[in-house]
């Protein structure tokens, strides 16, 4: 247990040391957030509510998106895949303990760092300047915090699955490049999923991409219960999936020798 906490701390410290990247990242978030805010203000000038969202919901979506951007699309995305290709990862599999949990601990340390240094400041400043719809009670904020952490966990789990393609092919990047645009859209990073037409929306609501962004937005704007439940369910499912993949990969390494 202590080992995992140590990894958590190590990940946290590692990520907080990238100060220049943090400054640049905050700048990027701020800029895109401002532009998107302007867009929604213009959109909502003539209408109060569209697809069940009003301007406060939309603005909350914008700034949760900017806050979570670096958590979901982590800049260290390909580190696992590269470690697999280079053979370094074999050592990881041979160590005692649970490799999946170890990876999660280190990654979570890093994403927690991002949450603390980027997500929270971004959301706070936005909340002070704009009419966001955020929980007003302490309990509500705690739930929001939990939702953000769950998003970070699911982000790791999905990144793990994509990275693990490296066990089977050297073209893992190309594979991802082809799939990425669709993921980008379906996870709600282009426009809120709520604006999708009926049948598409219903389909997308069942995807593991929802816990990444749309679920935290919903927890923030009020529909906490269902959103949190979705996140927890996907954490569990992706956990099982991740372990299965790891087991398959280990077997493959043993047979093929990395």
């Amino acid at each position: 247990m202590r080992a995992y906490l140590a990894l958590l701390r190590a990940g946290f410290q590692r990520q907080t040391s990238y100060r220049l990247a943090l400054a640049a990242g905050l700048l990027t978030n701020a800029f895109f957030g401002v532009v998107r805010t302007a867009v929604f203000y213009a959109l909502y000038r003539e209408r109060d509510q569209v697809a069940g969202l009003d301007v406060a919901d939309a603005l909350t979506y914008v700034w949760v998106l900017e806050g979570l951007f670096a958590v979901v699309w982590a800049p260290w995305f390909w580190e696992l895949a590269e470690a697999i290709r280079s053979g370094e990862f074999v050592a990881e599999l041979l160590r005692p303990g649970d490799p999946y949990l170890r990876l999660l601990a280190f990654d979570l340390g890093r994403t927690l760092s991002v949450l603390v240094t980027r997500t929270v400041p971004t959301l706070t400043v936005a909340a002070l300047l704009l009419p966001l719809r955020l929980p007003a009670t302490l309990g509500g904020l705690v739930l929001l915090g939990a939702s953000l952490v769950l998003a970070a966990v699911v982000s790791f789990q999905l990144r793990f699955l994509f990275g693990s393609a490296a066990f089977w092919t050297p073209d893992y990047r190309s594979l991802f490049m082809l799939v990425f645009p669709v993921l980008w859209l379906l996870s709600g990073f282009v426009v809120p999923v709520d604006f999708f037409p009926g049948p598409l929306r219903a389909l997308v609501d069942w995807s593991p991409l929802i816990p990444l962004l749309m679920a935290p937005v919903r927890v923030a704007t009020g529909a906490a219960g269902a959103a949190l439940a979705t996140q927890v369910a996907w954490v569990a499912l992706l956990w099982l999936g991740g372990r299965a993949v790891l087991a398959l990969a280990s077997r493959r390494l043993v047979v093929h020798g990395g």
Partner: protein
Amino acid sequence: MAEHAGVYLRLAAASVRATARRPAYLVVRFLSAGMIVVIEVAGVVLMLDRFGSIGGWRPAEVVVLFGLAFTAQGLALMFGDTLEADKVSELVRRGTFDQVLTRPTSPLGWVVASYVDTRFVGRMLAGAVTVAWAADRAGVAWTPGRAGLAALAVACAATIIFGVLLAAAGFTFVTVQGSEAVNVLIYGGQYLASYPMQIYGSALRFVFVWVIPIGLAIYVPALGVLGRQGPAGLPGWLAWLSAPVAGAFAALGGLAWRAGIRHYVGTGS
């Protein structure tokens, strides 16, 4: 410089040949770049259709802006990608830039021509297709004049983006560190210019019309293409102003590049 043009074309061709040695990889990058444009446009369409309009502009009209901005960005990055701060920073740190300076060419020409990224061709084409499709949806009747304005918008916006890259590269010679701030201007600027400029507050509008004039370059000619009247007080000939403005901006970028090189030669990083 004209005497060298043939040389730069050959260098660029060599770079394309080099990347063509892994055709599958090339195709994937091309497709993925195109798909990103399509997806972004699809998302915008989904959203705008729900709202009906933004700033008085119909969805199809906004998508024309998106298309123009993407095409311009693809064009600029196709050549200017090598000027990205991270890459220049690596050139300096590894000492490879010394070799560039031993060539009988202008260092800018060499750096630009030595790697032409075809992935941005995918972006460009997708952008152009978007313009065509959206213009059709918006009921634009193409005339040579309007086509000229569309081309002007793309050329000027591309020049401005290229100018940003030049200036950032010049700075990188001095700081030797990459900078993400440049990406904010290149990707953020493109995103901002993809919506009608009147939706933005005066500060944003000022910056992106008169300081980094990509808003000017895309918006004003687009008015002409779409047959729209600009906000009151906007003269019709403003569209043609975007050419000298873009040129001046790129020239400033060029000055920053030159200053950067002078610094490099002086201090021999």
